[in-house]
């Protein structure tokens, strides 16, 4: 099978890898680059667990043909923490019990980050809309909404 070279930036650092024909970006990140933070849930666009940020926009890595990210900026959950310091969203997810099994969490974090990058103090409705493509089986969503409110410095159900 022919391999094609592709160069892009992953969490700010240059990445140069070979992609297989028809390979999706999720598979490239996980098997080709070794970034296991985006998760495979459905492979068909319905769960959101593979959400990454490409050139500032949330996209689904399972439906992105890997070779199309040539020259683009890709962000994953792996790039959120700064050394031992967690990102404000990660802290808030922990504090607000927004992760149980954790499988949806990387996708939720990237959907939330894409929102906060554009809208630093989103309304509750904007948060619900931003995570509407991400499914969580465990939390019932309220703790996740709270975490995103908290990360943007706004009151939650608990802190009123």
């Amino acid at each position, binding site marked *: *099978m*022919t391999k*094609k070279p592709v160069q892009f930036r992953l969490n700010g650092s240059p990445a140069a890898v070979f992609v297989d*024909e*028809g390979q*999706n970006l999720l598979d490239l990140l996980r098997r080709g680059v070794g970034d296991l933070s985006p998760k495979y849930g459905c*492979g*068909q*666009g319905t769960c*959101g667990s593979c*959400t990454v940020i490409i050139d500032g*926009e*949330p*996209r*689904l890595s*399972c*439906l*992105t*043909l890997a*070779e*199309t990210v040539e020259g683009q900026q890709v962000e994953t959950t792996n790039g959120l923490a700064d050394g031992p310091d967690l990102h404000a969203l990660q802290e808030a997810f922990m504090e607000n019990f927004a992760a149980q099994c954790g499988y949806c969490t990387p996708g939720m974090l990237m*959907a939330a980050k*894409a929102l906060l990058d554009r809208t630093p103090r989103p309304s509750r409705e904007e948060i619900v*809309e*931003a995570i*509407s*493509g*991400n499914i969580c089986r465990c939390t019932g969503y309220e703790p996740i909404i709270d975490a995103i409110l908290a990360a943007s410095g706004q009151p939650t159900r608990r802190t009123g």
Partner: protein
Amino acid sequence: MVTVTTVDTLQEAAASSAGQAVFLGGGTLVMRSVNYGELSVPQIVRLRSVAALRSIRADGTRIVIGAAATMGDILRSSEVSFLHPVARQIGGPAIRNMATVGGNIFAPHPYGDFAVALLALDAKLRLSDGSETDLESLLAARDNEKRLVESVSIARPAGDDFRFRKVSRVKPKGVSVMSLAAWLPRSAGRISGARIAFGAMAPTPVRVRAAEAALEGATLDENGIAGALAAATQGLTPPDDGLASGWYRSQVAPVHLKRLLLGEGSRT
């Protein structure tokens, strides 16, 4: 196994995809088939850059939208603000950053909500061979179409002349039980040249000419629209699927058409 060919122009892409290849738009449907080993052809053809096919611009009384414009591009353009409620109803935010206008025209049942709006707005397509065709003719022969869509030109509706409604079971992200769009130009309060389109009521988005004809010269009130409601499903045999039976679709179509025309009970 699938191979991917990258070309520079839509014409080259059309030449390749006329054979055993599928053209890649935003990939939301094509990649799903690839992931599940269900792609019906062995090759994908894609453009090296889609930037030139993403513009949205005014053209006299009409607006031209590049086929590679995404639902996200539509939502960022004030030129097409009347289409924002349509784009917002397609998938979730990540899907909207990928799903293209061109891909929506070819999306199989029950998808194609955006194409329903385009159909109501008198869409004319510019194709890869330089020719023009109206969306309705293309949809009628969609499965055999070998040319690719370069751009779509639509009418710019005045005031609240354009209406759209999507009926789904899951909110905010469900697929359509049906979608409906209407363009209702009026002079002195009377409708003239109405266009009504349905999605998920036939294998492709369709116009309902009997309902359109019944609105000619009518006023937009209960009495005025009665004939259109009676004709709502004339000539249609809506499909059965996991969301709704064809029978159910036929039964509820007039109710939703009424809400669309009178702006009642809108939950969008």
